[in-house]
């Protein structure tokens, strides 16, 4: 159905975003629980989730802080995990770049996997949408996901102190990250990037200052990019 007003565009985004509550919810609860287990109080957990709004980066920062990594390493690693949002930012700019600056600032704050994925697909299939309608759709996709993110972070933090102490929470992070990564292994270069990163991470496990993660991540990214270049060239010849 074609979207005629900005109001209907907002509600279309709102509806399309609803299923993603099921994805954001569990991760937010888990973050609240793990952060509370690590000694953060409710205010600190909520500030973390409100200021950063990035599941994987938040988990990474928590893990490295618990390993007593230097602050600068914590920041570089967590931001590296979050680099993909820069790619999202680039991808939606042709569609939303004409919006007023204050609106773009809000959009940037709310730019997450879900708002990017839904909006980019929508803008591609309906190029006739006006810029205000696109912005309204975008904010619609964010609404329920963000509410879920904050409420479930709160629930996790509140729950954290009351969980039985024999739960294997040490392994919550590996399972969380594997479940996020496995569906992304769509092409051979993606698999190569992951395998190289894992091998280098295991070899570099004794490198000081938790630098092993940055070395392994860079090696994996380079391996992915290089194998993509190689495979594309091979397909052309």
């Amino acid at each position: 159905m074609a979207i005629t007003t900005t109001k209907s565009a907002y509600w279309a985004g709102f509806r399309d975003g609803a299923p993603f509550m099921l994805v954001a919810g569990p991760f937010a609860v888990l973050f609240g629980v793990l952060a509370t287990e690590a000694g953060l109080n409710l205010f600190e957990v909520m500030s973390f989730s409100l200021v950063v709004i990035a599941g994987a980066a938040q988990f990474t920062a928590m893990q490295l802080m618990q390993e007593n990594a230097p602050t600068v390493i914590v920041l570089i690693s967590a931001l590296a995990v979050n680099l993909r949002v820069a790619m999202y930012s680039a991808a939606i700019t042709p569609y939303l770049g004409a919006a007023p600056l204050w609106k773009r600032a809000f959009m940037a704050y709310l730019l997450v996997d879900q708002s990017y994925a839904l909006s980019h697909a929508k803008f591609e299939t309906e190029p006739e949408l006006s810029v205000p309608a696109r912005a309204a759709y975008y904010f619609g996709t964010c609404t329920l996901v963000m509410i879920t993110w904050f409420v479930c972070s709160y629930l996790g933090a509140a729950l954290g102190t009351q969980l039985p102490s024999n739960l294997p929470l040490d392994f919550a992070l590996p399972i969380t990250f594997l479940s996020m990564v496995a569906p992304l292994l769509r092409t051979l270069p993606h698999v190569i990037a992951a395998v190289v990163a894992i091998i280098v991470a295991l070899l570099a496990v004794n490198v000081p200052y938790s630098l092993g993660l940055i070395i392994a991540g860079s090696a994996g990214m380079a391996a992915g990019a290089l194998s993509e270049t190689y495979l594309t060239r091979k397909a052309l010849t």
Partner: protein
Amino acid sequence: MIDKSTLWTVIILLGVGSFALRFSFLGLVGDRPMPAWLVRSLRYTAVAILPAMIAPLIAFSNEAGTGPDPSRLAAALMTLIVGAATKNVILALFTGASTLGIGLYFFG
């Protein structure tokens, strides 16, 4: 225990940094094209860094920290297999957690 001043430094700077990443192109670059090598590398950030982070946690997950704990290794493999096969994040998450729960219940 995480030092409070470290925690707040990380929360604030990570917030500022994440916002900068999100705002970068939307706010500053506009619709000018980006170098191809940069776009290509950005595509592989998640699949490189997330596995690199957890590989040692899985490989040295037994109590002595010398090798993998069988239940944890099985849970990791099940998460990976179900996630790759179904592309369903939540199904993968729950499969992994259940495998770990069952493994620890029967084998300690």
